[in-house]
């Protein structure tokens, strides 16, 4: 079948990395974030294969992806994921804070550049903050603080 390619960079490239890694449940959220950060530093642009009908050139089973692998070794399986919209439930900020701490959560959120996407993530994960917070860095901090409040609330309610 004739193949075409699609170039990804920046946020769409990050989204692609996250989708690929999310297919591997053996990786923790913190590990996934670490790998995404590394790939982001090393990979300037990706070209992904799609067929002439715009369908996905997917294979059924995703092989494992490790941080040490070059971007070219990332399987073709997640081409579909790259075209999916932003997933506001990833990373699960509360889980990352609980398991790896606030710095890891902040680092995980740096993979999301767009303030719109950060706000969407905050809304969907019920991690709300003041409306006057505007920069991406401030929003990330506010999201992590909201996650910490949420965790504290739960501990308090347990009695």
């Amino acid at each position, binding site marked *: 079948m004739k193949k075409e390619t699609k170039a990804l960079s920046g946020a769409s490239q990050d989204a692609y990395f996250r989708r690929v890694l999310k297919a591997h449940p053996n990786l923790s959220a913190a590990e996934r974030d670490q790998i995404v950060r590394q790939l982001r530093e090393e990979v300037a642009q990706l070209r992904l294969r799609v067929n002439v009908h715009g369908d996905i050139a997917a294979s059924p089973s995703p092989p494992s992806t490790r941080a040490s692998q070059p971007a070219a070794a990332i399987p073709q399986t997640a081409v579909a994921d790259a075209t999916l919209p932003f*997933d*506001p*439930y990833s990373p*699960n900020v*509360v*889980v990352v804070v*609980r*398991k790896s701490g606030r710095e890891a959560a902040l680092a995980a959120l740096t993979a999301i550049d767009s303030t719109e996407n950060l706000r969407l993530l905050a809304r*969907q*994960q*019920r991690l709300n903050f003041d409306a006057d917070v505007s920069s991406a860095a401030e929003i990330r901090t506010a999201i992590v603080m909201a996650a910490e409040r949420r965790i504290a609330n*739960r*501990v308090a*309610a*347990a*009695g």
Partner: protein
Amino acid sequence: MVQFLTVTNRKGGVGKSTMAVMLAHAAAAWSGRRVLVMDLDTQCNASLMLIGGERWEKACRSGHTISDYFYDRFDKVAEDESAYVVNNAGDVARARTAPGAVSLLPGSQRLEDIQGELLLKHSKKDLDADAVAVQVRGRMKRLMRHFGMDFDLVILDCPPGLSFAALAALDLANHVLVPFRPDFVSQFALDRVAMLIEGVETSEQLATIPLGKRRYSCLPNCWTGDGYERLLIDQLALDHPLLNTRIPLLASIARAFDWEETKKTIEEKYADALPHLRELHHEIMGAPEPRARTAHA
């Protein structure tokens, strides 16, 4: 050897009675077990699901409910308790090849009153209220355990909240099933009921018990699988043992509990919920026997 499975959650409306009845049908039909459902909830929903309104009312009138059982036998030695049990309960037909069957110790709207009466009756000058409560609970536990001689599986359907009977059922359980809806308040309810089940007072103490050693497992019910539910499940999985089974929000489950006199197969009764019930049955009945609890005995 009999197993006592307690179904509980302090939060109401999470599907305790529904799951208790579904598991009773599944264990009888697929594992060939003689199952007794003990209805400890004053709403009596499990009773109504299993024997319908008329038979339940008849049991109430004839004094053969859980509250009558506790009241009549509280100060007596154990004897034949079969008069309190309604056999051939449920509307799932028994398979010709399987010995399994569902029986019911019917619930009663008077159970809370009876517990209060028992508490007063056994109050003594030299005992404080807590000590009397422990005695009442202990006696209830022994009375409930008595049914273990005639059944392979006793499912104790608890009310929301903490009645003496519910606490006794937690003490007695080999395993505790905690259905919950994956929403904001449910996480608080799980945290609290988990501490109660494990007999600890703080979340820090609870955290010292490995998930694999807990006496309970949590069952997501009314599952739609949306992003927020998945988010919550990931968060809850850090603190509680969750079953892999997810019971979806299905009309067929709600319809399955319209009481009908006509018996049907379990496949007919549960329709498209059947694969989920199979998975639940496998996880609960196929699991190794959990450790028994000795605290508060």
